[in-house]
């Protein structure tokens, strides 16, 4: 048993030290956002934030997480009260199948937390570890720029409802 802090809550998790975080998030904590894409650190689908930094949860063993704070996409906001990054991705309709998107959003979130006004070049460089197969890249870039603006402006209020309504 070890204690894992995820999205502000502490969980007692029965996992071996070498279990990758991804499987604990999905299997034990029933969280959906971090996705299995390759298990090899080649595609970025499993990205979450640990202590403010984007990490690949598929190659992040539990032993490294003692005392650290994990944030997943679920921890940022909800459909009813989306975080700026979530609102931005909804407003830009930045998804096709969307499987790669949560990982991209987490890396973008980590970037925006340390650099609130990244250049286009910086965003591209930051997202380099991430693959998207549908070709949604242009929208993803626009969404990250939009998220930067939303986070930057005081009126970054949650949308009444960011969904299709």
């Amino acid at each position: 048993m070890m204690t894992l802090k995820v999205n502000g809550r502490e969980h007692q998790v029965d996992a071996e030290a070498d279990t990758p975080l991804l499987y604990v998030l999905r299997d034990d904590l029933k969280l959906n956002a971090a996705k299995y894409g390759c298990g090899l650190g080649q595609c970025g689908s499993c990205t979450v934030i640990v202590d403010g930094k984007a990490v690949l949860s598929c190659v992040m063993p539990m032993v490294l997480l003692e005392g650290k704070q994990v944030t997943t996409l679920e921890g940022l906001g909800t459909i009813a009260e989306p975080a700026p990054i979530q609102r931005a991705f909804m407003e830009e309709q930045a998804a096709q199948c969307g499987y790669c998107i949560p990982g991209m959003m987490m890396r973008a979130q980590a970037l925006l937390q340390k650099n609130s006004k990244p250049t286009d070049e910086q965003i591209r460089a930051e997202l380099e570890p991430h693959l998207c197969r549908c070709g949604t890249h242009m929208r993803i870039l626009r969404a990250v720029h939009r998220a930067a603006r939303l986070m930057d402006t005081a009126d970054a209020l949650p949308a009444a409802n960011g969904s299709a309504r």
Partner: protein
Amino acid sequence: MRASTRIIAGIVAVVLIAAAVAAFAIAWRPAIAAIDPPDPQSFDTALVKRGRDLAAIGNCSDCHTPRGAKNFAGGLPVPTPFGTIFSTNITPDPETGIGRWSEAAFRRAMRSGVNREGQHLYPTFPYDHFTNVSDEDDRALYAFLMTRQPVRAAARENQLSFPFNQRLAITGWKLLFLRHDTYRPDPKQSAEWNRGAYLVEGLAHCGACHTPRNALGAERVSARFAGGDVDDWHAYAINDQSRSPVPWTADALFAYLREGWHPDHGTARGPMAKVVSNLSSVPASDVRAIAVYMASVSGTTPGRAGPSEDALTRARTASQTNSVGASIYTAACASCHEGGRPLPYGGVDLGLSTAISSPDPRNLANVVLSGIDAVEGERSPIMPGFAASMNDDQASALLNYLRARFSDQPAWADLKKTIADARRTQTVFLQTSPAPRNAPADPQQREKP
């Protein structure tokens, strides 16, 4: 650089300046008359082609084409103990490049480290090796560069502290360290060996990284190829002090330099990745010659037979311990390094890793923290970086575990500092250093068990 070294270096430099001023008459170089940029069509195509290969052997693009820059337009910051020097524009742009340089001016720069205007160049431009380049090869290099796309990009001002910002200081350096003799073949050796020696000592300037430097930044003649520093990477000893678990042979060197990887040694990375990616496009005979010569330099040390199969098996099947390092290894490293995949995609058998056996842990720290990026659109090994996943304690635990399990060497000292430094320096390195222009060669065929 430690303060004491800085003081000593400063004193020496002042003395050198004094000496240089005294020797002003011999230090002074005239400008060579500017020419109208030659018509690219006026150069012989075969000569340009030869120049292209030579430029690849010289690894020119590594310094003169930084990440995101136009080909050969310069601008790479080269950190030295004396400050930052920026590489220059060597495209044929008449205003900001070498468009107005005659061949004589180009040859003088290669031979004497003096630009067309007569200014001395800092020896980050490795003219201490280029003195060995033949007239004929300089002509081909000139033809190649003068037929490139001209790019208007003014050189950035070097950021050097006094007295190193005085170009006159360079003349003193040259008096002490620059040998003007050109390469002379050794009649006792084969033509191939001599070709290799000519390239290694000259244009390829291997010693610039692999030979340690003295306090004034000159290669230590007494320690040729004993291992040096570049971009906060350790350039391994490639003489008889090499620590590679399996000794290098000419065949292994050839494959490594040509393909970018070798099953007994792993995949070239860091600054060496650019070298091998350049060498992949040049005539195989030249790479073979370099390999033959370097194999004779590294020699075969008596008693060095490489790790026994037993030792490797022991390391591979080490009983799982509950240490932090072991757990990190199992989840983060083993899925690839023990995945049974052949190189270059499978990750080197860590029992064969020079990085783990090396006395200097920086390369291992660099790779673990920063990983290996994908080469754009090409089959290439990818390793995720773990800088964000591990704190310094955890990375130390992993490196200690790897060292203990996969080498017979003593534990490294001061690992945490190495790791902290690597975090800082690799961020800069990866932002400025050019991406390898191509990936390690794809084996196409799977190695049959």
